[in-house]
């Protein structure tokens, strides 16, 4: 059995379903992200694990025992908040030592542990300062140190980086991952930032409207999204609506696409085909027939994104996004006629949900 397990967990706020029949097994020492738009129930689920919200139904098991009715201060679960929630009246040292003091640990031992975690978050020289004397990034490191000082059984992070600027965010998420791996502490990380979730997690749980859409490794979530929501929420995907016309072909309006894994679909069944912009090759000359997908179109928009340039290509029935890298030899201009080329594997097929 998994270390932390949520079974049939549900939560309603008056009439609004916040979390609906949530089932998840989390292995000891792993970092799991809850990813989804605001209001998807990710924070509510986290708060139920912490004990700040009561469950309407279901059970939460931690290390073999049920914790659903254990008060939050006895769960031994550390939490880091979006707003840092450092105690303004206490110095950094006292903030970090607070949890240890509550556990009646000797002064000497507290000193040692505080020094240890301060070193871990690389802020040894701030021990005597007060929270308002620190930058946002430093405050969040101290909040992390404070949560880790008591060596909790599980660490929960509730959008810990969303109040920080982009640069600090990237550095700090690396730090969080580093410390988490060093300590091998079971961690649940709530975020609405897909890049954050994909870059630091062992497992990503994509949530929408209180339900789990998909659970998987970051690669699985990105490469083989199981639902349309996941496909569109994670990264960008071109959508082609069509119907199965053969064992490997789909007709989307006038365009015939070839794709793998159509065995599970019947002829004339309506399907949705997703193709990511980075999986599309752009060619300025008509390609030789090679068995893959080729669509002819006209460039309508060119948007520079740094590492890639994104083209908006009119293919008649719709606009398709395709990425080209900077070192692409042929310069492409607006209204230029081009050919979009992509393989079977680039097509992700799923049932059309109405």
């Amino acid at each position, binding site marked *: 059995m998994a270390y932390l397990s949520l079974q049939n967990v549900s939560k309603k706020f008056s009439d609004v379903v916040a979390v609906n029949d949530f089932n998840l097994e989390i292995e000891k020492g792993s970092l799991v992200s809850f990813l989804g738009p605001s209001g998807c129930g990710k924070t509510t689920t986290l708060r139920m694990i912490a004990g700040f919200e009561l469950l309407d139904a279901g059970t939460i098991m931690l290390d073999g025992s049920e914790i659903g009715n254990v008060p939050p201060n006895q769960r031994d679960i550390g939490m880091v908040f979006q707003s*840092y929630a450092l105690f303004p*009246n206490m110095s950094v040292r006292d903030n970090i030592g607070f949890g240890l003091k509550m556990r009646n640990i000797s002064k000497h031992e507290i000193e040692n542990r505080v020094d240890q975690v301060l070193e871990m978050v690389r802020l040894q020289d701030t021990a005597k300062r007060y929270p*308002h004397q620190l930058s946002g990034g430093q405050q969040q490191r101290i909040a992390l140190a404070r949560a880790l000082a008591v060596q909790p059984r599980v660490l929960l992070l509730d959008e810990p980086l969303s109040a920080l600027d982009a640069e600090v965010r990237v550095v700090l998420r690396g730090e969080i991952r580093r410390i988490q791996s060093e300590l091998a502490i079971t961690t649940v990380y709530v975020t609405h930032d897909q890049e954050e979730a994909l870059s630091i997690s062992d497992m990503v749980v994509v949530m929408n409207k209180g339900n789990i859409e998909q659970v998987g490794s970051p690669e699985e979530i990105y490469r083989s999204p199981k639902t349309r929501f996941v496909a569109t929420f994670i990264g960008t995907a071109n959508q082609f609506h069509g119907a199965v016309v053969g064992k490997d072909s789909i007709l989307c309006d006038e365009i015939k696409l070839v794709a793998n894994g159509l065995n599970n679909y019947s002829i004339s069944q309506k399907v949705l085909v997703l193709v990511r912009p980075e999986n599309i090759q752009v060619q300025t000359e008509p390609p030789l027939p090679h068995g893959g997908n080729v669509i002819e179109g006209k460039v309508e928009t060119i948007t520079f994104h740094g590492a890639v340039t994104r083209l908006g290509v009119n293919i008649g029935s719709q606009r398709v996004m395709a990425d080209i890298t900077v070192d692409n030899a042929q310069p492409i201009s607006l209204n230029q006629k081009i050919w979009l080329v992509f393989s079977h594997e680039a097509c992700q097929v799923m049932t059309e949900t109405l």
Partner: protein
Amino acid sequence: MMKKTHDSAIKSERRPRPALWQIICIVLFLFYMLLPIISTYVFSIAKRWDRTILPEGYTLDFYKRAFQVSYFGSTLRNSFILSLSTALVILIIIVPTVYWVHTRLTRAKPLLDVLMILPFGIPMVVLALSLVQIYNFPPIARSPFLLIGAMVVYAMPFMYRPVVNAMQAIDANTLTEAGQSLGANVFQVLMQIIIPNILPGILSGGLLVFSTVFAEYTLTSLIVGARFKTFPLLLVEYTRINGNVAATFSVISFTIAWLASILILWVGSKGQHTTADTIRVR
């Protein structure tokens, strides 16, 4: 063109010279406010001041007489006991209530806000007489305990507002959850996290209650009267015996109130540092 608008913007920011009528208003207002106080101070050291514009001479004799009044010490002591215990009782009631309403029972907040205005709407004579009639059994009847109870009702709003404001300035919910996740129970959170962070509000509320109760006359006079004579009762009594001595009592009362106010201002200025600077969520 651009420069012109820029210049006029700077000009409009400059403070205009006050008009004559504004100066007259301010002088009249200060005169109205300060004249009675200054006169009281002067009267307490005036030898005789009923035939001339300025006193005929100055003396500290009335202070000597005031300190020699047999009730002086006991009334001052009674007033301190009354004010301090009222402030303490209010503190014990208000702080946990406000904390609870802010974190757990937010729906009750409008109700509490209304309740805290009610004492201002009840005439003190009505409050005193109804309390005396209802609590007419020993040992409460007309006792200092009943008086403290009445004072608690009367002065509670003076504590409520500053405490609510201080509580709103901190993120009490998240701080509580942070404390709980670190193993603290609600009582430990209240004592070690919440109270230290709203301390400026508690102190200024406490001082407001103290100075209000210290100067209160009606409730004291109607509920306990001579059984538990307070300083304002002594003062009123002396206005009928010797005006100059009564003036010295007023001066002493003023001084205590002013010391309390200075303390409020000082605590308030310290409080600005701890609440506004420290609590910068996001």
